[in-house]
């Protein structure tokens, strides 16, 4: 038996040739590799990372198509100052190792001006440091993880959602007041999302008992049989009001598992990012549950939202975005739901921020005002000015939300207001009590109060006017 496994001379030559050929194919260095400014009528290239495939993808994989749909609509109207918006999307499959490579691709190959709307806390953690180190804007990130939105740590990162703590505090106050005599329990996924939600409920004065009214599961394991025992724990302990702080796919499995176990709490309460009715019904459908049955399962379920319910056809933003979605969304599943509305809203806010940065009348921070106004006059979009606009003019970026963006030099958290609703028979979230009341608070120990924010109307052409 010949035991040699080394590279022979011929193989070495061959390998060298392959590598050289590879390097010639792969090493494409554009002449403007170091330029991050967008001037003239060049495209504004935006980058996004999200799970388009895999366990975490259902529902979220519609956000990018909705965003692109809105950008295409804006492009059809002439773009922003003659600049067209191009959205480059990379699928990371919710694997952080892959996210690092896809971020590198967006930065170095696609030369993105900014990241926008990226989905996934675990995955975004893997790249947020690098993105900030390179001073690339990282706006409207689709996670409510509070640690991302501290400007001192991540100066270029801005949220697209209210934080989980804020939402849970508002929901917690409502539950405590409405169901004071009921046994309230929680099922949460053991990641930042679940833990932040738990923190918010605790802050609102709701307390849970481990192994009794407090059940948890490892995020991403919702397809495992173990979730049945967690639901069983809530059932065995007589939980009457059951909170779920988990992604939509896990919410769907939880509801179906509970149904199979014959567990029917008086109320299900679900944190908004896990309460998308379309996603839940789609997953139920894959398990052979008819839409009417899954709708019945959702009826009465309590959730919250910072934006209008997608089923609220009387809302002007919903009507405008729905029309654009019908005409411009080229995605494989453009069914109108929370995710599509969120995608459209992020598109709308992004365009507003870009327009504001290029507006010659915008007043930036004292530090950058002179440079950024000069840039705006030249029609040049720079990263520094875009970040400056987000931070110093955040409250001027309008959106469908019933709350202003909170961006400032001390926080990059997004919305602080939520309203509470319950699903009706048509799976439309309707305000509890019949009237929508928006509550507001912070991620700390601040009180929950009624918001007096008045949402600006959307223009007839559905374009921001920043």
């Amino acid at each position: 038996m010949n035991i040699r496994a080394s590279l022979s001379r011929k193989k070495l030559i061959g390998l060298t040739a392959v590598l050289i050929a590879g390097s010639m194919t792969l090493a494409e260095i554009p002449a403007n590799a170091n330029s991050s400014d967008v001037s003239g009528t060049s495209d504004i290239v935006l980058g996004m990372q999200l799970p388009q495939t895999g366990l975490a993808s259902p529902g979220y994989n519609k956000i990018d198509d909705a965003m692109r749909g809105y950008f295409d609509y804006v492009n059809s109207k002439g773009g922003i100052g003659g600049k067209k918006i191009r959205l480059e999307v990379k699928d990371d499959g919710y694997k952080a190792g892959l996210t690092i490579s896809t971020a590198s691709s967006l930065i170095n190959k696609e030369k993105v001006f900014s990241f926008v709307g990226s989905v996934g806390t675990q995955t975004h953690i893997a790249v947020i440091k690098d993105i900030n180190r390179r001073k690339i804007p990282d706006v409207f990130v689709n996670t409510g993880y509070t640690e991302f939105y501290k400007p001192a740590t991540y100066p270029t990162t801005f949220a697209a959602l209210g934080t989980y703590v804020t939402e849970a505090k508002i929901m917690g106050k409502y539950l405590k007041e409405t169901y004071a005599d009921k046994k309230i329990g929680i099922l949460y996924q053991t990641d930042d999302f679940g833990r932040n939600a738990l923190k918010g409920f605790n802050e609102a004065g709701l307390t849970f008992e481990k192994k009794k009214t407090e059940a948890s599961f490892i995020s991403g394991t919702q397809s495992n049989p173990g979730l049945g025992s967690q639901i069983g724990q809530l059932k065995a302990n007589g939980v009457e009001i059951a909170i779920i702080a988990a992604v939509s796919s896990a919410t769907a499995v939880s509801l179906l598992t509970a149904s199979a176990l014959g567990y029917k709490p008086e109320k299900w309460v679900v944190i908004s990012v896990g309460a998308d009715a379309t996603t839940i019904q789609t997953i139920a459908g894959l398990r052979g549950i008819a839409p009417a049955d899954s709708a019945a399962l959702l009826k009465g379920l309590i959730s919250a939202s910072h934006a209008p319910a997608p089923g609220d056809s009387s809302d002007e933003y919903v009507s405008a975005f729905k029309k654009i979605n019908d005409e411009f969304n080229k995605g494989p599943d453009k069914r109108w739901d929370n995710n599509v509305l969120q995608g459209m809203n992020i598109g709308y806010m992004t365009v507003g921020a870009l327009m504001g940065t290029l507006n010659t009348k915008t007043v930036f921070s004292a530090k950058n005002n002179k440079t950024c106004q000069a840039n705006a006059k030249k029609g040049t979009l720079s990263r520094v000015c875009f970040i400056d606009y987000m931070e110093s003019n955040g409250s001027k970026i309008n959106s469908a939300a019933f709350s202003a963006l909170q961006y400032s030099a001390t926080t990059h958290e997004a919305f602080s207001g939520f309203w509470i609703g319950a699903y009706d028979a048509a799976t439309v979230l309707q305000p509890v009590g019949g009237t929508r009341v928006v509550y507001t608070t912070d991620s700390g120990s601040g009180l929950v109060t009624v918001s007096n924010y008045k949402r600006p109307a959307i223009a007839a052409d559905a374009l921001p006017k920043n």
Partner: protein
Amino acid sequence: MFKHFQKGNAIKSLIFFALIFYFGKVFDPYNQGQLSVVLIYFIGILSITLLTGLSGQISLGQGALMAVGGYTCALVVLNLGLSYWQSIIISAVVSLIAGWLLGITAARLSGPYLAGTTLVIALAIPSLATRFESVFGGDVGLSVDFGNPPEWLSGAIGEIGYEQWQLFAILPFATIALFLALNIFKSRTGRSWRAVRDHEIAASLTGINVQRVKIFTFVVASGFAGLAGAMYGLRGIVGPSVYPVSLSLALLTGAILGGLRSIAGAFFGAALVVFLPDLIDKITGGWELAPQVGDYLPAMVSGILLILTVVLNPAGIAGALHHHKPRHK
């Protein structure tokens, strides 16, 4: 392990170093980053080449041993404040110990039982990270990186980009791994592993302690995997979503496509696994593919390649490059 290091292997390793260094200079930043991943996968696949290709033990859980290396590295960096290269070495040592513990169990198992056991370990590791969140950071993980390039290096070769620095930081370890693997293949140790793989009873009759060889193989392979895992984590984050089960399967895919019993095959396999999505993207860039097809195309193509390799060309790319009968069976 081996009585003397082969001079030829040292030369080959140096050529490898020089070639990768050259490509690190001419590639654009994205491909520098991709080449870094190729090197990490190369080391990871080498662990499979040694374990499965050379000694015949099947593992579906090399990703778990990479996680051991990754978490060790992150904990050492964050808690002891050691430099990245010191942490990498410590990670490899800890992985050797983990491999020894695993090897004790593995030596009693074979075939599907061993594959199943290693797969369970790959599944269990992420759960441990969540169970002991205060130590391992839970789902959020532990944030670590290679830091900035040292000034002396920038002074010697000019301005270094972040991806380039990652590549240059990984390259010495990949070169050492290659050198060690080349020597193992040529040494008496390698011959005894091969003997155990081909016929345990016959190997035993020649005086080889089969159990000991199996354990030792696991120890060495784990060291390689741990080394790869440490550097994989140093790209930005160590967490459960960095070392999923699919990572173990990707390494196995690379090993089979490249050539399970060849060191060159490990490199080819790593390059294929890493660059295949880019290649497909380049080819299909102008096509109007539905996302349901386009999103899954890389996985589908590698699956087809895997089947074709097993059926038509079991020796993989490295085997196909031979113009004559493969040297080692």
